[in-house]
């Protein structure tokens, strides 16, 4: 057992989903782009039905590395300049086998101007963010990301090790100023197994075990709820903004697809002046 564990850890070295090579950018308009547009059309239909989604607007912007260092940990930042009018955000990684990575519904205690999370990217792909506005309309943004192999990349440790402390949560609070939104970072210990990760020695697939729902509230008010799936990286880290109205506390619940349920309450110190 000990030796197989060590082997697994060493094997992680050869499965690092990193691909760095010189090359040209995403090719100009052609068959490839048409196929990507067609793909997005099919995904949109499945998620949003016949809803009309406006592109080219400024409701939401995606920041992602053009070329990711680690395809299993690709940082994505969604910026919402028009924060008062956005109700929900969806993040879609077009070429992942499960493209619908996250769906975030903001509550009254949210400051939606910036949301950051880390995702797995299976192949060079368009990434889409769709904002649902409070008036019921939709706007989309897109970004092309070069990363490959993120969904099947093993964690570099045994499953048992990866699950140690599962459900532990930490919260870091940014600078607090009276009357201003605060940025916070939620970290949840959880392997978020994709079900596509193979133990290279036993050749068994680790069953999918991932966080399905996260709720964050401040005092009595919701900050956000997020539905996630196997495209969210192991040990999820989510940066978000909230309105520190009242004394808190910040309460987080997380549930996974195998019945795991965790809760934690974080006391919030009031602003220093």
């Amino acid at each position, binding site marked *: 057992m000990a030796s197989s564990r060590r082997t697994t850890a060493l094997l992680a070295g050869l499965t690092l989903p990193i*691909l760095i090579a010189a090359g040209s950018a995403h090719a100009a308009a052609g068959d490839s782009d048409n196929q990507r547009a067609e793909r997005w059309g099919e995904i949109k239909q499945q998620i949003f039905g016949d809803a009309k989604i406006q592109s080219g607007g400024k409701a939401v912007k995606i920041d992602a590395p053009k070329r990711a260092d680690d395809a299993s940990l690709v940082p994505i930042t969604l910026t919402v300049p028009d924060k008062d009018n956005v109700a929900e955000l969806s993040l879609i990684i077009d070429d992942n086998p499960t493209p619908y990575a996250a769906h975030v519904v903001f509550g009254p205690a949210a400051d939606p101007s910036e949301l950051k999370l880390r995702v797995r990217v299976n192949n060079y792909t368009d990434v889409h963010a769709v904002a649902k506005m409070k008036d019921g309309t939709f706007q989309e943004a897109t970004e092309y990301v070069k990363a490959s*192999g993120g969904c099947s990349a093993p964690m570099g440790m045994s499953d048992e090790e990866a699950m140690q402390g599962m459900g532990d949560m930490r919260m870091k609070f940014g600078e607090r100023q009276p009357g201003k939104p605060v940025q916070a970072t939620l970290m949840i210990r959880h392997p978020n197994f994709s*079900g596509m990760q193979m133990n290279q020695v036993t050749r068994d697939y680790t069953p*999918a075990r991932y966080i399905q729902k996260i709720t964050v509230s401040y005092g009595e008010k919701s900050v956000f709820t997020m539905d996630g*799936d*196997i495209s969210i990286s192991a040990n999820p880290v989510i940066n978000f903004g909230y309105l520190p109205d009242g004394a808190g506390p910040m309460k987080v619940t997380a549930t996974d697809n195998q019945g795991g349920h965790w809760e934690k309450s974080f006391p919030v110190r009031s602003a220093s002046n």
Partner: protein
Amino acid sequence: MRPVLRLPIVTAAAVFLTAAAPADSPVGVREPDGYWQGALHGYTPQTLAGATVVDAGEVAKLIQEHKPVLLDVSEIDRKPAGLPPGGLWFPIHRNIPGSTWLPASGEGELDAAAQDALKARVADLTGGDLERPIVTYCHPDCWGSWNLGKRLVALGYRNVHWFPQGIEGWQDGHDTAVSRPDARWAARPKSTVGQ
């Protein structure tokens, strides 16, 4: 207790040793005598006896000048158990435009029916021309394309090219196209497949 290892100890040890080397290790992985029977993902040799090893630029040149038969050996995404009912499982595969996708044709062992089907399919794609250039590929560190290349050499093809960098090496500078598993290969008799 951990499940018993399915691989023979020797194979596991070989995987262990090769894994300890860095990605572009000067420590060469030796060509196995037969087809590689271990995990398909792992460090591969730098050579394939009887075939030519090519990079993306050489593949592009081959495509331009010789219209090779392009064979993609990538595995099909396997749907994990435990996804939410009604959730969106919607895999897609992109490879070198014009390729024929033959998933599982690079397994260490093919049963007799699969061997026959492969032989017939490749004969069809090459028009029975043993001199026709063929390129086999999948992903980096993938033994499947190595095994298929070796199979083609054994079938008598004299212009086999193995492209170890695979789809990742290609897509960095070239367009890809959406691909579906080859219908005729997928329709092969599968009496003994399904292990």
